[in-house]
């Protein structure tokens, strides 16, 4: 079955959630949200089935104690998986959500760090999701560290980066070596293309597999079961991405 880029990325992320127990999804995250809903659907009925808490909208939002509850729960260790992005991301998995140029009067200012400076430290498995794979995004060194990828010994840090998903590839982060390793390249793209468009150094194993595309069953599940659920929180996203499902 053919699928579009968003569907492919949703399924790629869903695969990364297979061992997750409780996934939290922040604001403005339709692709990670869809992936988590899909992974939950696939583990439904199992005792260790995936649990999902989404802020932003009322659907799948279990919080009743105000804006701090997501962060408090994270501090309590109730989630094992969260998603972050970045205006810039570097090879140490430092992320920048604030802007480019010299802080504070930056050349280009973006919204700000949101909860990253906390969530990146306390949620065990953080998946970085940034579709645009260019040297503008993947830089040698970020201009502003909203949240560092790694910490010195002695700093309380049960959490941190696990993987990076882009429009070209999947990378896995090695926390001990403080480096990304290319895990797979999406169909239609090459290791060379990834190298050309990445501004930081990363490890490349001898053989790099192609990222597995979604099975027909998974795509159908996504289009028929998941799209109406994600539409409760992101109607415009669903209208744009899942038009093929009509």
């Amino acid at each position: 079955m053919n699928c579009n880029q968003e569907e492919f990325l949703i399924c790629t992320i869903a695969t990364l959630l297979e061992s997750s127990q409780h996934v939290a999804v922040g604001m403005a995250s339709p692709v990670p949200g869809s992936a988590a809903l899909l992974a939950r659907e696939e583990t439904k009925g199992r005792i260790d089935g995936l649990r999902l808490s989404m802020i932003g909208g009322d659907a799948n939002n279990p919080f009743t104690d105000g804006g701090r509850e997501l962060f408090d729960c994270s501090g309590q260790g109730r989630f094992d998986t969260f998603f972050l992005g970045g205006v810039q991301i570097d090879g140490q998995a430092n992320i920048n959500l604030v802007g480019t140029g010299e802080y504070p009067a930056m050349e280009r200012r973006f919204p700000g760090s949101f909860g990253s400076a906390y969530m990146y430290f306390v949620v065990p498995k953080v998946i970085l999701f940034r579709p645009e794979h260019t040297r503008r995004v993947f830089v040698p060194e970020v201009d502003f560290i909203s949240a560092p990828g790694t910490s010195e010994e002695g700093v309380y840090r049960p959490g941190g980066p696990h993987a990076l998903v882009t429009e070209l590839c999947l990378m896995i982060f090695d926390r001990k070596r403080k480096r990304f390793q290319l895990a797979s390249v999406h169909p239609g793209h090459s290791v060379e293309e990834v190298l050309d468009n990445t501004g930081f150094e990363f490890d490349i194993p001898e053989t790099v597999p192609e990222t597995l595309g979604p099975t027909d069953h998974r795509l159908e599940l996504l289009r028929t079961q998941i799209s109406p659920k994600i539409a409760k929180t992101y109607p415009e996203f669903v209208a744009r991405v899942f038009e093929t499902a009509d």
Partner: protein
Amino acid sequence: MAIFTTLDDLAQEIKDGTLIVLPPDYSNVPIAAVFALIRRRVKGLHLLFAPIGGIAGDLLIGAGCVKTLEAAAITMGEAGLAPRFSEAVQTNSIKIKDSTCPAIHTALQASEKGVPFMPLRGLIGSDVLNNRPDWQVITDPFDENHGPIVLLPAIQPDIALIHTRLADREGNVWIGKRRELVTMAHAAKTTFVTVEEIQEENLLEDERTATGTLPDMYIGAIARAKKGCWPLGLAGHYVPDGKAITEYVEAAKTQAGFEEWLEAHSVPQ
């Protein structure tokens, strides 16, 4: 001890230089009161978002009301970047105190509790922390390994400014499950509220409504403002006006366009 007043009189009570805390875009943002503040040409505000801002911040910055801004982010959501905010930061015309969501929640909780500070995990090694000389890193006295931990000083806003659907004649205010409004109100010296409606029945007298009610002890002033969140939404009551927000973002890309948009919309009600 709430005083019932008009929207513009409520805005008059917010003096230049006030430290105001506003709620995040998804929840009870008092845009009608923001327009009233702009009409009264308030200056030098210290604006805090709990913890993320949107059009309320962009409007006040564009209108020249803001001296200092503290937030975890300012975003127009799907409509893109906040134009007046971005330009003000890029031209250094406001002082920005970049923060992160749980740090703002925590600093407000410290004020709510009447303690001078609260600790928070994370932060260490970030440029958020590196640019906050008001935050302190100490050695955690309970950690056997003597690791570092950040202490955040309490933030006590002068005024929490919110919009809700309903208040009663005693000055109690319905907030439902938007409990960040409770933290804001407890943390602030006083809370000013705009409401869609005022009802006669005491909200505290029925346990179902009492549970989601902010008692009048915290409330300083209440004014009616129909559709007081427009162009944002009020959950369960009206949805955001996406078209108006998109038009705003387009218009406000220049200061002239912003002022034109403002003149067309910030009319007394």
